[in-house]
Each structure stands twice: as structure tokens, then as C-alpha cells.
């Protein structure tokens, strides 16, 4: 049901700009107003949610870790998995953010004959996720050529590396093929793995299908239904320099691509896609395990009224002495 609904939503999102620009001549709406609105929603929503997260107190360290913590000098510390310093934590976070180290430890549980339970390593999800995220990042950065004049040299270099195999014309980018394959795998995994299907919701299927739609329209635009990309760059440069212009020789397919991207940006702050900033705030990954070296005081600690034994003895010393009770301080 969630899959059908998501598919239906994507179909509507494709048909809207198709009718809007193909029949109703709403190029300005789909080329300027909606992209601007989406970007504003993205930035404001993102800032709002992150600041909301930032207000959450961090009372103590969570030393959950996968390795030996710093201890006596003759016990070897696992510095990457259980860092006790700032830079150690930076290294652990870098591995987490860039290479999804936690996901690398993914296991799958199987009930085998016996019955016997077995836990085996399962790297496919890690591989699919890594392939998707890196392709998406490279494609995102490559699109900078539509928003920069002159195009910086590192965008050229990235394009050159991405088209390393020089297959086809225009040269096929490796990331274009990889992102489609990875998204297809991630989607089919949700459909065919009964355990994952059971916990999948519409907000899991929808972003996947949306990204597939964006990748598919982008690939169509580049390789199959080519359009006047100089006009598209004029649109992009107009948007980025806040002097929007809408060239008239841009096809509806481009507006579908742009609209789906706008939807992705607008949807971002309201969805699980917020794991992009969220990964940096993973509590078990971004805190150095230094609880034994530094005292972390809970900021909402109630000021407890204490009455220590010393104070107690001061208060009742005379009575205690009269009763013959032992005193720590007798004067």
C-alpha cells in the first residue's frame, strides 16, 4: 500500500510540471517561483530543526563503544573505536560520515536447521548505501557547472574522472550508472526482504522513488532526450544571481527534473533525510570517552540539599559525647 501511494505521489509530481509547462505555459512558476520557495523552505527548515536539536542538553558521555577504552598504560587502547581525545573523536566521526563504519558492522540473523540461530555479516546494505551517497554527492557537485561562470577547474576534473571510461557520447558518467543501480537495489531490498518490508513506511519508499525519478530524468536529459543546456545554464545563472530569467527553448522534461529536485529540497527538513545533519550528532559516535578523566555535570541537576556526617556531628556533638558515642572530631 505504501509503495502504491508513493508511486502515485511520484506520478502526480511528474504530471504537474508536464501539464504546467507543456500546456499552461507556467514556466515562470516551475522555473523560478517553485525552486526559490523550495530552497527557502530547505534552508529555514534545516536551520530551525538543527537549532532545536542544539538546545538539547548533553548531560553525560555515552561510552557505548566497540573497543578497549583508554586504561592503564600496558593495555592497548582502541583509539578509533573508543577515542578519549578530541582528534580521536574527529577520526571516528570522519569514518562514520564518509564511510558509514557503523553500517559496515551490519549483521543479519538467520534461523538455520537445528534450530540454530546464526549471525552473519551483511555488507550489501553498506555497499548500496555507500554507492548511492557518494554518487549523489559527486552528481550534486558536478551540477555546480550550471551555477558558476567561469566553471571552476575542479568541476572539470571531477567530470573528467567521472567519465573516465569514455564510453558513449556524451560520455557516460560512472556515477549515473552507479546511482541508478544503488537506488534500485535499496528499493528492491525494501520490497523483497520480508523483514525490511514489514518496517517500511511511505516515508521510506517516497524519498527512494523521488531520487530514482530525479536520476532517471537527469539521465534522460543528458543521454536520450537532449535539450538546449546553454538555455538551462542561463536559467541556473539567473536563479543564483537573483535576477531570474526564463529562456523559452527549454523542454518540459527539464521542468520535470527541476520540479522533482525542488520537491526533494522542500521535503528534506520534514523527513528522515535530516539524517544528513543528524549523523554529525550521533551521541555514541561524537563524544570522547573521557568520563574517567573529566567530570561531566548534568545541567539540569536539582540543587540537592545535603547534610553530611561532618555537619551532623557538629550539630549533635555535645549530645553524642554525653551519650558516650564515638566521635570523629572530639574537641
Amino acid at each position: 500500500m505504501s509503495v502504491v501511494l508513493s508511486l502515485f505521489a511520484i506520478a502526480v509530481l511528474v504530471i504537474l510540471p508536464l501539464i504546467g509547462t507543456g500546456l499552461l505555459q507556467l514556466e515562470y512558476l516551475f522555473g523560478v517561483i517553485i525552486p526559490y520557495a523550495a530552497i527557502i523552505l530547505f534552508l529555514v527548515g534545516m536551520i530551525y530543526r538543527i537549532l532545536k536539536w542544539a538546545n538539547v542538553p548533553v548531560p553525560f558521555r555515552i561510552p557505548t563503544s566497540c573497543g578497549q577504552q583508554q586504561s592503564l598504560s600496558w593495555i592497548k587502547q582502541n583509539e578509533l573505536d573508543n577515542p578519549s581525545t578530541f582528534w580521536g573523536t574527529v577520526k571516528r566521526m570522519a569514518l562514520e560520515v564518509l564511510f558509514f563504519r557503523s553500517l559496515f558492522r551490519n549483521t543479519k540473523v538467520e534461523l538455520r536447521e537445528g534450530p540454530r540461530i546464526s549471525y552473519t555479516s551483511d555488507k550489501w546494505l553498506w555497499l548500496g548505501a555507500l554507492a548511492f551517497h557518494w554518487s549523489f554527492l559527486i552528481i550534486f557537485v558536478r551540477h555546480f557547472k550550471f551555477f558558476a561562470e567561469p566553471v571552476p577547474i575542479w568541476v572539470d576534473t571531477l567530470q573528467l574522472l567521472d567519465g573516465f571510461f569514455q564510453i558513449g557520447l556524451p560520455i557516460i558518467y560512472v556515477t549515473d550508472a552507479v546511482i541508478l543501480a544503488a537506488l534500485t537495489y535499496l528499493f528492491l531490498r525494501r520490497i523483497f526482504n520480508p523483514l525490511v518490508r514489514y518496517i517500511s513506511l511511505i516515508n521510506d519508499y517516497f524519498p527512494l522513488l523521488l531520487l530514482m525519478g530525479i536520476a532517471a530524468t537527469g539521465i534522460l536529459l543528458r543521454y536520450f532526450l537532449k535539450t538546449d543546456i546553454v538555455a538551462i545554464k542561463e536559467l541556473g545563472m539567473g536563479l543564483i544571481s537573483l535576477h531570474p530569467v526564463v529562456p523559452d527553448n527549454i523542454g518540459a522534461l527539464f521542468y520535470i527534473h527541476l520540479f522533482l529536485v525542488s520537491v526533494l529540497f522542500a521535503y528534506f527538513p520534514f523527513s528522515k533525510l535530516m539524517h544528513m545533519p543528524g549523523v554529525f550528532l550521533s551521541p555514541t559516535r561524537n563524544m570522547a570517552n573521557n568520563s574517567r578523566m573529566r567530570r561531566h555535570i548534568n545541567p539540569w541537576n536539582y540543587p540537592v540539599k545535603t547534610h553530611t556526617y561532618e555537619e551532623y556531628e557538629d550539630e549533635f556533638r555535645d549530645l553524642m559525647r554525653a551519650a558516650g558515642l564515638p566521635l570523629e572530631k572530639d574537641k
Partner: protein
Amino acid sequence: MQDKSKIVIGLLIFLVIITFPIWYNLAGGKATYRPDLKYVTDAKECVAPTDYMTSNHMDLLNEWRDEVVRDKDRVYMSFNGNKYDKSLTNTCLDCHSNKADFCDKCHDYMSVDPYCWDCHIIPEEVH
């Protein structure tokens, strides 16, 4: 303890990165630049309609190359029945002899680096 200051610093870094294209173009001052193609020929028409040539000329050139190199098929019948020699140097560059003011304009603008010129010479530059 709160990590608010660190998170705000991270947020600022993100905002600088995501708005980088804006600063880049403000600093470059070329945001309004548009490639201006110069036509230096008296010919009235190309081998295919302008719209098609603008977006798909690379397909045509690719087809021509394959047909000439693999099948020795050198004659191109255009959309309105004219015959052309399938040749980048002799047909295309005959009219568009100003590579720097024609081909390169859009290719530079779009950061496209076609490998045509790995083999083909530009007649004007040779002379």
C-alpha cells in the same frame, strides 16, 4: 553541558558551503555573461534545423564518424533533400570556420571538452 556552540559552528560551515555558488558568482562578476555565437557564413541553412543542431549536434557528428570510418559512407542526405559530405573539417568548419567564436563559446560556458580536436585540425589555425 550543551554542545550548542559547536552545533552552531557546524551549521554556519554548512551554510557557507551550500551558498557557495552565490559568493562565487558575486566575486567572479560574470553571472550575466551569455555565450554570443558569431556566424561568419552567407549560407542560409545548416545540415539540420537549428533546434536539433543546438541540442543534438554531437549525435550527428558521432553518427557521421561511425558511418564514414566503418562503412565509407560519406554522403549525408539532409532533412530538406540536400546532399552534404560527412566531414567535420570540410562541411561543418567550412561555414563555422571560427571555432573560437562558435564551438568554444558554448563548450567553455558549459565546461564541455569534446575530443573532436584530438584528431581534427582547425583549418584557420593551420594556415
